[in-house]
């Protein structure tokens, strides 16, 4: 759940084990986890209800992509990092300007990339 004095991160990931792992890793790195959303609707639902400072988006969510979430985040000015098994040119255009981490990646890289997105 969001915490006032921490950086609140939304995780969008459809694989339950990977999402679970990411949430533990990011909590350990000092972030507060807004939630792990496996679908677009769950992510948009969480975004409406909670303060969110950063997001990690898995690009491919099985039957859908997280492009609508990327649009909502961009509109709200919330920076995000895309993680994907796709190669760069296979990603929807919504991710063109976002930093992209290719799966699998080390937590330290994700944490560093996330921190770079924060306003100084």
């Amino acid at each position, binding site marked *: 759940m969001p915490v006032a004095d921490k950086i609140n991160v939304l995780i969008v990931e459809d694989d339950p*084990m*990977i999402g679970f792992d990411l949430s533990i890793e990011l909590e350990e790195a000092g972030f507060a986890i807004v939630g*792990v959303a496996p679908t677009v609707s769950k992510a948009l639902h969480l975004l409406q209800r909670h303060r969110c400072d950063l997001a990690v988006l898995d690009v491919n969510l*099985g039957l859908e992509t997280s492009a609508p979430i990327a649009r909502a985040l961009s509109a709200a000015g919330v920076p995000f990092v895309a993680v994907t*098994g796709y*190669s760069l040119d296979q990603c929807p255009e919504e991710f063109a300007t976002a930093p992209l981490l290719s799966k*699998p*990646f080390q937590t330290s890289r994700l944490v560093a990339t996330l921190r770079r997105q924060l306003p100084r």
Partner: protein
Amino acid sequence: MHGMPGAPHVTDDDTAYLAAIVNASADAIFGTTTDGIIRSWNTACERMLGYSAEEMIGQSILDIVPAELKHEALAIRDRVSSGDPVESFETVRLAKDGRPIEVAITYSPIRDGHGQVIGVSGIMRDVTTIKAAQRSAAMLAAIVASSSDGVVSKTLDGTVTSWNKSAERIFGFSEAEMINRSIRTIIPGERQAEEDRILATVVSGEMIDNFETVRLRKDGALIDVSVTVSPVRDSAGRIIGASKIVRDITDKRQTREQLRTLLAEVNHRSKNMLSLVQAIARQMTRHGRQLDLNRFLERLQAIAGNQDLLIQNDWRFIPIADLVRSQLGAFRDLIGNRIAIAGPQIELTPEAAQAIGMAVHELATNAAKYGALSGDEGRIALSWSCDGDDFDMSWRESGGPPVTVPEHRGFGSRVISDMVRAGLDGEVEVDFAPTGLRWHLRCPLQRLSRSSNYARR
């Protein structure tokens, strides 16, 4: 020798002269009596059929007629004997070695000085080669006509000279519309220069092999085609035009695009799988714990089993009963007696199947180590049900050694509770009751299955 028709005064010299001509003729020439006895047989006859004059003179001409054609030969003999010539009659005769030879025979009546028919002359031509050529020409024409590729020919200035059925189908222009029209009709404006290049290549005697390009249909639509163009030469070897084979490759291009999509999918899935392996390894080694390699490999095997089930169902879903049985595979022989499985059929999404599959795997492993399956008596009841929009699943062990609450929470414990809870938006209760472990999951049915809420792909 008998006199030739219309040559009433014949000298011996004339006879010898005529005999020499007949003998030297490239056509096989023979003469018979009206009842078919051979009286003359020239060298060309010998060459064609293999019988010498000595062998044949005095024999019946029917000897060289196949049995099934004898009545036909008799009818012709009657006709010619009555004074009627027969021009280029196509039939079959037998060579000495029994080989049938296709021939065209011109029969003429032989008359004596009074105009009385006294015999029949035959001039026989071997038409085997011509027939074969005709047949192969007809065959080629049929192949071109029935080819699924468009086959077109054109002159060196690009005027269409032939246009088969498939060309009609591919381009929408009929043969009548295209003959004598320029091939440029089917070339889009911006590609007209291609035709200059094609013609120049053909004129130089080269062919163009499977050139993939775009052409214009009569209805204005652009189509993807592969074109092979070869020069056509006349008998003197001069290039007089070009033949063009056109294949509609719209399907091929679509297949290529599907393949590209599929490869992107494979790329995504395989990297996701590596991320999953990484997540398991990371969670198993938290707080500096050593990786238990055997347990790690067992977990990977359990996940690989899911993949087989997913493939069986076109990567869309996994039936819950199949999933459960697969994860309990190590205890297959106990299912139905010590392990009771009950619940309705539900088509799980791949993600839900992974979460439930991992939970069942961890529960079963724990039961084998410490719980109901560690002895010979214990039982497990695994059941699930749907209650409106909710899904319930429970794992109840009994009859095993007394259960104690573990001192610390390992990977398995976090999988069956935290991971499942987060991954399925559910509530999970784990009760280490002394009589046997109880695990209960309740989550929205919508999180597990698309079948009731979404149209299937």
